[in-house]
């Protein structure tokens, strides 16, 4: 299982044509681009959760997907509220687009699965995706953020997503 998570992480990272740390390593990302990347990453996980809620019959997987939907929506709402308060708009960028391209392929892959095979693939992807996003937040996005309020929001978000990663890892050991 661990190996699978590892290779999933590598696969996603490869789709982004970079190592996890390089997910947003384009030098000189500005705060509006960072906000866009973080928002996009959240929307992508909401998309995965929506697929899971249509497909899974496992109550623990369903509960996890419900939490992903609920938490990522709240964090993204907070991000939008902050941008509105600052009277700025998030700025689309190559990293957000790469994320979305990789996510579209993953959504297609997940949509073709069902039953236990779907549950396994969904949970393995959640482990890998949260590892990737959390590493990127921790090592790249948060350190590069200039605005104190955005930095604080991303730091809170990282705490939430780290719990998601642990939750997904626990679930991965149970979904066989």
């Amino acid at each position, binding site marked *: 299982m661990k190996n699978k998570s590892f290779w999933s992480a590598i696969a996603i990272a490869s789709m982004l044509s970079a190592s996890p740390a390089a997910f947003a390593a384009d030098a000189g990302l500005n705060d509006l681009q960072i906000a866009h990347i973080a928002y996009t990453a959240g929307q992508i996980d909401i998309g995965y959760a929506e697929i899971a809620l249509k497909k899974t019959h496992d109550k623990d997987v369903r509960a996890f997907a419900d939490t992903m939907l609920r938490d990522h929506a709240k*964090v993204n709402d907070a991000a939008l509220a902050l941008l509105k308060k600052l009277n700025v708009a998030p700025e689309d960028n190559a990293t957000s687009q790469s994320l979305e391209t990789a996510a579209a392929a993953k959504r297609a892959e997940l949509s073709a699965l069902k039953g236990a095979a779907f549950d396994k693939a969904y949970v393995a992807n959640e482990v890998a995706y949260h590892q990737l996003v959390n590493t990127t937040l921790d090592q790249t996005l948060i350190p590069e953020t200039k605005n104190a309020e955005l930095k604080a929001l991303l730091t809170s*978000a990282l*705490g939430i997503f780290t719990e998601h990663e642990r939750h997904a890892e626990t679930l991965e050991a149970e979904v066989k």
Partner: protein
Amino acid sequence: MQTANASRPGSARRLLLAFLFLTACSAPSVAGAEDHVVEIANMAFSPAEIDVKVGDTVTFVNRDLVPHTATASGGEWDSGSIGAGDEWSVTIDKAGETDYVCTFHPAMTGVVRSD
């Protein structure tokens, strides 16, 4: 004796004051209950373990961005969803040790001990 004393206006006032004083003094021991606060912040209950007396109240205050629950593992009590900035209270009516969890985030756990 009381009747006789009470018949004098000054004594009646003193009796009333004494009654009010005794009532005020006895209120805390009658109510007796304390309110304990458990903050939910940074995806953790804080303090994660608390000791209370039977009859005390525990208030869970959610300072995170996302909703949480405080749910006794044995089903004794369940907050349901506590939204960001909201709080929920439970009065502990039995002695013992109760483990609880956030059902949305199973890594978040706590213990209420009561006697």
